[in-house]
């Protein structure tokens, strides 16, 4: 038997989650990035709730309660203030923020805007420069200083 906490989000909960996501990370036309309330990103968020679903559900409900049941009708300053304070409270709110951020920062459009390739790390990996090993020269000249035990 399913636990009530594990039942998928209702349409109303998805709308509330979308309002939160869009406030937390809004679209920015200058940078050319979508908001976290973008349909594709929202679909990814909802799909990836998994084990975080009960916490995210609780956090969405808590945000709604703090907004007297109508978060979306608050002006943008009030929404940002409420959300920032709520996320800072930790617990379930951290899970809510983490799920939104994990989905947002793997979206192709977002990664490309950050100058990154939209791909997993493996198998291509990355190239890292060796760096300037001559920086070690003064340390090499130092006498051993580990503590002797005998």
């Amino acid at each position, binding site marked *: 038997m399913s636990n009530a906490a594990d039942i998928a989000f209702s349409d109303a909960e998805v709308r509330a989650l979308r309002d939160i996501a869009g*406030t*937390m*990370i*809004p679209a*920015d036309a200058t*940078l050319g*990035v979508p908001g976290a309330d973008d349909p594709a990103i929202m679909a990814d968020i909802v799909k*990836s709730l*998994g*084990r975080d679903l009960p916490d995210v559900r609780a956090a969405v409900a808590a945000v709604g309660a703090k907004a007297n049941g109508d978060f979306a009708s608050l002006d*943008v300053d009030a*929404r*940002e203030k409420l*959300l*920032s304070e709520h*996320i*800072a409270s*930790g617990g379930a709110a*951290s899970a809510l*923020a*983490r799920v939104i*951020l*994990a*989905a*947002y*920062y*793997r979206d192709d459009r*977002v*990664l490309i805007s*950050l100058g*990154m390739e*939209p*791909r*997993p*790390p*493996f*198998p*291509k*990996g*990355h*190239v*890292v*420069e*060796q*760096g*300037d*090993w001559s*920086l*070690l020269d003064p*340390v*090499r000249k*130092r*006498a*051993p*200083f*580990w*503590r*002797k*035990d*005998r």
Partner: protein
Amino acid sequence: MNERVDVLIIGSGASGAAVAWSLAETKMRILCLEQGDWIKSTDFPANGRDWEARRFGDFDISPNSRGRDTDYPVNDANSLMKIANFNGVGGGTVIYTAHWPRMHPSDFKVRSLDGVADDWPIDYWTLERFFDENDRMMGSSGLAGDPGVPPRNPPMPPLPLGRTAALYARAMNKLGWHWWPSDTSIATRPYEGRAQCINLGHCTPGCAQGAKASTDITYWPLAIRAGVELRTRCRVREITTNEHGMASGAIYYDADGQERFQPAEVVIVACNGVGTPRLLLNSASARFPNGLANSSGLVGKNLMLHPWPVVSGYVEDELDGGRVPITSLWSKQFYETDPQRDFVRGYTLQFGRGTGPATEAISNIGTGRLPWGRAHHRTYRTMLNHRVGIGVACEDLPEEHNRVTLDPVLKDSHGIPAPKIDYTISENTRRMMEHGIARAEEILTAAGATRLHASRTVLNYPGHLLGTCRMGDDPDRSVVNAWGRSHDVKNLFIVDGSIWVTSGGVNPTSTIQALALYVADQMKQRLATLFD
């Protein structure tokens, strides 16, 4: 009943694999029971676009968050530091950062040198050849000539400095403080069938390339080829004893959930600092009412977890970000006791690199540095690939009130009582943490970083589980002797981090494995008189 084996090893992680491989040359019949699975390279998060999210899911370092059916729960509510581990072939080596420092010589003599805790019954020099052997077996990378540690010769060159470590190096040179490229167990060139590192990012949630040494790809293939049997999804409930007070084998649940008895001549426990005391306490009987091997009352006590504050900040220059293993440099500048300070013992500074794009944002939930709303994007773009961070690896001294017991309520999926952790950070360690945080802030400031943030405990679960079955010569003050044998049960051995007397200020895996190889060597030398 299963066929009797000569040696039963419980746990296939860092120490279990090393002891299995070393004992294989005896041609004894050796069996290892592991409660987890083999992990395939295709299972690791780096294969997919959700690689960052899975660090908080099925590859989380906390068994409570990970919640695989092969995990057991841990009640760590009464501890600021949380328990990290991994249950699978390779154990914690599957999900460690591959930092590869050794304990220092002074770490084995803290009573003699500093008047605190206890000396170990063995010293660094006893272990030196086993450190070297383990470096060859696991494949370590690094650079000889470090004036801050005893001589050693890693078989592979160090990881690149890159932009991030070069920035730290300039700051450390400006301050005149010691630094050196960290030893790691990451293959920086092809090594014994392993491909070299191609910079997949943070190594903790497993290496899809196989460049990071974990015992499932180092010791185990060789041990199995030499005749050792490894059975997965076998969860041991208790070690049994016979009428002579000797270990007779173990009762476990197999992959089908069936209860089985495995008889053995010798039992070796390798479940590390939480799993091992849990198993011994769950093995209480009429003859051993307080738990097996526990006449000292010290099984589960003296838990050491390595408090590990992390100070981070941001610089203007673009750095390596999360494109490279997090390990870069270490500093031993503050490792040894200094009478001018208000604490004894010391710490290693470990210099990290950046994170991936999602982790950069997630790690700032609660720091107040990254705004939510219209200001988010512009601030975020000053953070990604601009992060610097230093971890303070503090020595944690043993205290009996820091302990592992059995939870009276919580059980795993087989109904076996789960471990309960009671742990507090001592005043000495707190002073050490604050000293290290202040030095890390100095370094980052010298590197040009701003927006500094010190995390004292939030990220503080390095998974170093030490001290709960300490070794020693006095049976009243220790659980095992100087070569890992139980004082109480002459055919029971422990080879993992639980036998540590003190913790040092370093990641423990290299020393855990050197100890396991040393215990195996002692057993091989004493085969004719092993139970005397």
